[in-house]
């Protein structure tokens, strides 16, 4: 099938031809009939029912295993903080990818990028992962030491706050982020719930009717929708950076004596954006492949996301190195302990592949134009990045939580703990929480199409193929 929008100014021969039986191709630019868009995208909520059911059962079983692992681990190790590193790592990983993905739905839209419109539903749906992240965080918060231990106030960002402050405020912050994410997802899905109400059948139609809440597409409704998307997007961004600041301070720096790093929270937030882009690419690749969305999730989207993933991989090394160089040259006992704990110490097995898979390999892979201008190339790069980020979170949080709590008041870490390997409960929690996250996103796409109907129509409404000197291009209107 000919892809279209990669030829912004291309040498395609002029002329119209039927495309994919429900659209037209003009100079390499595919124009889809609105009714065909509606039929196809509403149809995605029912497509592949057998395969969906199979995956839903597998993921539900995994989620149940994860929940069981979490409960059993709490019953067995609720008094031993050093056993919870992998749980903290998986919570950080879910925050990294699930928290970062909705920014793909926000940032390019605020910058008036047209290519992102078919991706915004996919990206914003990952805010639902916040539910799983909060569940995984419950035992972690319970185990986190209070601010005042053994009569002394431990080092934290909560300088003069009451004893259980971090436990309350980290949850409030996560809750606010989740609320902003759900607000963004629901607001952008509102017109499509109306489409489900009008054109779906059975249970989906009933859900559409309930969730559309009488949407008919008046001027006022569209106007408020646009404003809400802007507001929730802004709130989401402001909260995401803040949540990373709290999460890294309370769950990493706060439990390692002598670790003071102003760059680490930003490194964490930045790699979350990298993870968010990566998971959006993977989801788009899967949607395109398994739901037959070649005309909706086109090369243009993969190309653009590939460039962002490439840029964010460069930022990974920039932020990592900015922090690292201070500890490397600092040479105080606290600095040496940091390098020993996180780089060349017990988790070097995670650090080296994390470095390769978060930066070196994706950088070398995505640097090539031919790789970026393909569908599979960015998807392979994204898969590598996701594995790299999981290993990176394991390196950070397993090392941090391996520090015995009785050393929390020391000026620096005097004894580097040994390598902590995952136990059976850790495997259950890792697999289960990732499975639960995938399940919750998949379920959302049974209620509302994976690609937004109204944003696809808007994408077409605002872009038009034109003749440009002796070539052809796509004219994009930016009316707002």
């Amino acid at each position: 099938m000919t892809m279209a929008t990669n030829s912004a100014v291309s040498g395609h021969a002029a002329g119209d031809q039927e495309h994919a039986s429900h659209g037209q191709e003009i100079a390499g630019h595919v124009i889809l009939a609105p009714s065909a868009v509606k039929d196809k995208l509403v149809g995605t909520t029912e497509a592949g029912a057998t395969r969906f059911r199979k995956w839903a059962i597998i993921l539900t079983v995994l989620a149940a295993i994860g929940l069981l692992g979490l409960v059993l681990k709490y019953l067995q190790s609720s008094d031993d903080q050093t056993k919870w590193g992998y749980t903290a790592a998986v919570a950080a990983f879910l925050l990294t990818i699930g928290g970062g993905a909705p920014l793909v739905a926000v940032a390019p839209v605020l910058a008036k990028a047209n290519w992102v419109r078919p991706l915004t539903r996919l990206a914003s749906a990952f805010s639902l992962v916040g539910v799983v992240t909060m569940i995984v965080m419950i035992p972690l918060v319970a185990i986190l030491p209070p601010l005042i231990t053994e009569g002394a106030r431990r080092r934290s960002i909560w300088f003069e706050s009451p004893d259980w402050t971090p436990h309350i405020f980290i949850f409030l912050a996560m809750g606010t982020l989740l609320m902003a994410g759900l607000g963004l997802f629901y607001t952008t899905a509102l017109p499509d719930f109306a489409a489900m109400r009008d054109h779906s059948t059975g249970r989906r139609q009933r859900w559409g009717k309930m969730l559309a809440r009488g949407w008919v597409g008046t001027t006022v409704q569209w106007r408020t929708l646009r404003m809400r998307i802007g507001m929730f997007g802004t709130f989401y961004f402001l909260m995401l950076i803040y949540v990373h600041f709290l999460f890294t301070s309370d769950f990493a720096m706060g439990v390692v004596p002598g670790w003071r790093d102003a760059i680490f929270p930003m490194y964490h937030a930045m790699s979350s954006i990298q993870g968010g882009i990566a998971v959006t690419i993977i989801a788009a690749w899967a949607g395109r492949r398994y739901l037959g969305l070649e005309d909706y999730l086109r090369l243009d989207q993969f190309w653009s996301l590939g460039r962002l993933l490439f840029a964010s991989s460069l930022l990974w090394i920039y932020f990592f190195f900015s922090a690292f160089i201070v500890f490397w040259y600092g040479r105080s006992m606290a600095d040496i302990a940091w390098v020993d704990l996180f780089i060349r110490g017990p988790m070097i097995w995670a650090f080296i592949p994390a470095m390769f898979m978060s930066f070196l390999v994706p950088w070398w892979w995505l640097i090539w134009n031919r790789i970026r201008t393909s569908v599979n190339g960015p998807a392979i790069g994204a898969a590598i990045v996701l594995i790299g980020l999981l290993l990176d979170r394991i390196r950070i949080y397993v090392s941090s939580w391996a520090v015995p709590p009785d050393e929390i008041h020391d000026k620096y870490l005097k004894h580097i703990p040994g390598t902590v390997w995952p136990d059976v409960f850790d495997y259950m929690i890792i697999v289960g929480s990732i499975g639960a996250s995938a399940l919750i996103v998949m379920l959302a796409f049974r209620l509302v199409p994976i690609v937004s109907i109204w944003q696809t129509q808007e994408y077409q409404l605002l872009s038009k193929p034109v003749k440009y000197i002796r070539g052809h291009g796509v004219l994009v209107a930016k009316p707002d």
Partner: protein
Amino acid sequence: MADRSILGMFQEAEPAADAMDGLARAGFEPGTFDVLTGTPYPEGAFGEYVPQHRLFRFPAFGAIIGFTTSILLTAGTQIAFPLVTGGKPILSLFAMVIIMYEMTMLSAVIATVIGIIFESRLPNMNPGAYDERITEGWIGVVISVDTTRAQEAESVLKTAGALEIKHAS
């Protein structure tokens, strides 16, 4: 009093805009007629009446409430349980800012969610005349009129090229 809702259905944007112009020329009050679309056309594309919105009041109001509460909470707890940390004053702004920011944002987000209910005019219990084809690309021009002018409104819609007329009371 408007007791009838009349909907003209169009497949193209241009005749729908003509219908909006025609209704305005015929003397129907701005705000009594509107365009229904399945995708957001640029504002003013149909010459439609765009009422003043109060969208920013909700998050702003929420943020003020949250900010004020957070000042009371942080200052109150620190005055109630004075504890000098790092030789800084009891009421240290930078220590308070962390909680103030969070509570401000929380209240702003909650108020925004509440605002959706009011400002989007949702749930819409009586949407008037509607057609399901609007969510597949058709354009509807809807007008609320009293029975005496219903015929005139319908005539304007037909003259502009409405392919179908629907009624609701």
